[in-house]
């Protein structure tokens, strides 16, 4: 197999996903088939080739550091899972000493 069960669990953690054993085994099979297919790229000589990350050749556009109105705060808060006044409630992230 191109990828092992252990690697699937490791990658899942990087993705902040979780799988039960059955799901992980299916992932091993499916990803292995796909990763095997990717091997064909190794047959190409790309030693002298530059990568293309964007097909549009432009420089990063900058904007002026001007204050603009942002009227969407209420609309944004409407989508929050849990609110306390105008703050979004999240699980505790800092352990008390």
């Amino acid at each position, binding site marked *: 197999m191109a990828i092992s069960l252990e*690697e699937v669990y490791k990658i899942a953690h990087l993705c*902040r996903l979780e799988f039960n054993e059955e799901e992980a085994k299916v992932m091993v099979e499916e990803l292995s088939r796909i990763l095997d297919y990717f091997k064909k790229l190794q047959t190409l000589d790309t030693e002298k080739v*530059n990568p293309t990350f964007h*097909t*549009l050749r432009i420089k990063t556009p900058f*904007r002026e550091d001007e204050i603009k109105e942002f009227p969407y705060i209420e609309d944004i808060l409407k989508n*929050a*899972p849990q609110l306390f006044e105008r703050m979004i409630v999240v699980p505790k992230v800092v352990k008390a000493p």
Partner: protein
Amino acid sequence: MATVDLKDLTILSALKLLKEKKICSKELVEESLKQIKKIDPLVKAYLYVDEEGALKEASKADELIQKGEEKKLLGIPISIKDNICIKGLPTTCASKILQNFISPYDATVIEKLKAEGAIFIGKTNLDEFAMGSSTENSAFFPTHNPWDLERVPGGSSGGSAAAVASRMGLGSLGSDTGGSIRQPAAFCGVVGMKPTYGLVSRFGLVAFASSLDQIGPFGLTVEDTAYLLQIIAGYDPRDSTSAPIDVPDFLKSIKENEKTSYKIGLPKEYFEGEIDAEMTKIILEIIERLKSKHHIKEINLPHTEYAVATYYIIAPSEAFSNLARYDGVKYGFRAEAKSLIEMYKKSRALGFGKEVKRRIMLGAYSLSAGYYDAFYLKASKVRTLILQDFLEAFKEVDLILAPVTPTPPFKIGEKISDPLQMYLSDIFTIPVNLAGLPGISVPVGLTSNNLPVAIQVIGPHFKDEHVLSLAYQIEKEVNMKFIPPILKN
């Protein structure tokens, strides 16, 4: 007032009738809503129909038309793929993780359409987060092809293509990352275009793969499609990948190039691949008819066979990054959990579907330490080779003709259990996104079991007007109206 027969209308013809006061927007929108009530229980193109909003806008439009107001889409009902944000309406991306998300703002393309008086009749179904080629990956339900309800409409913009084909709205916007406008357009017998990368703003399009995504129009005709593209195209300072160029007048170009003879290339590698025989016959017949006016020759795109592997490394890698934001914190589905990391993992495990998870995993793997060079960097280099193939070809020819899909629309369930099989069916559309070129799908015929067949026109960067011009010539040569049998009852 003339009665509205949706089978006879296009955006341009409807605008004329509205201007001449032969029909009114209220009638047009009411008929469209009636059509949705009649046909959509079978086709299931829509995730959300805004009946109240659409009728309200129709009344407003009629008032403005009475006053002599002339806006480019005033009173015209349009559907929008559900990964494009309309303020106050849901944008679910056909995912459980965004099931209850209401857009807090309008996408740039929506602002532009609103400014021209367009009426948004609803949001259409898609493969979850635009990942798929059949709309079977929608977390809610699959959409059915109006030409044969047992078959897929294509994907990921399957809902948009099916809606336009079924005359549930006169046009639509979709998104195309690896073929997601062109392929469903081909499967549903409508016109669908992916513009040059950078021509249309991505602000307000939920990102899948940022260097590949583009929003584009669906229409019943090439002119309708060009007309929609004209309105949504243009530089947007809110999209840092937006091209700072002037948008040509597409309809004017189409008219000016009605008799233009083009140098057209047929990629050897595309036509010698495994394509359905009947489809090939239909496509080659149309190409034969074009030979009397155009100079058609064989060209080479030697790295074609590497395109699918290249795409399925790059797109998932970019998706891995773009979908990291769905963490249950500020919006979207949040699972019950005792710790932060558990909240992230549970929310994403429960909120994302199988294909999305597959691609996030592929992306993570390709970018991870020890694999980055062999996978992501390698694929990015092969991307250069694929781009160079096209640039070389365009030294010899003006435009390229190609199939859109290797087969006619397949049956629902046929490919869903084999992800790799599904990926391989994107062979003719993927290279166009990797290179950032403009591409359009135009219907050219029907198979012996009444399924649409289409041809693809591909052009050089920012020659969208010529892609549209050749597409228009092809449409005139074909001279067929594509009406799914479901509408004839």
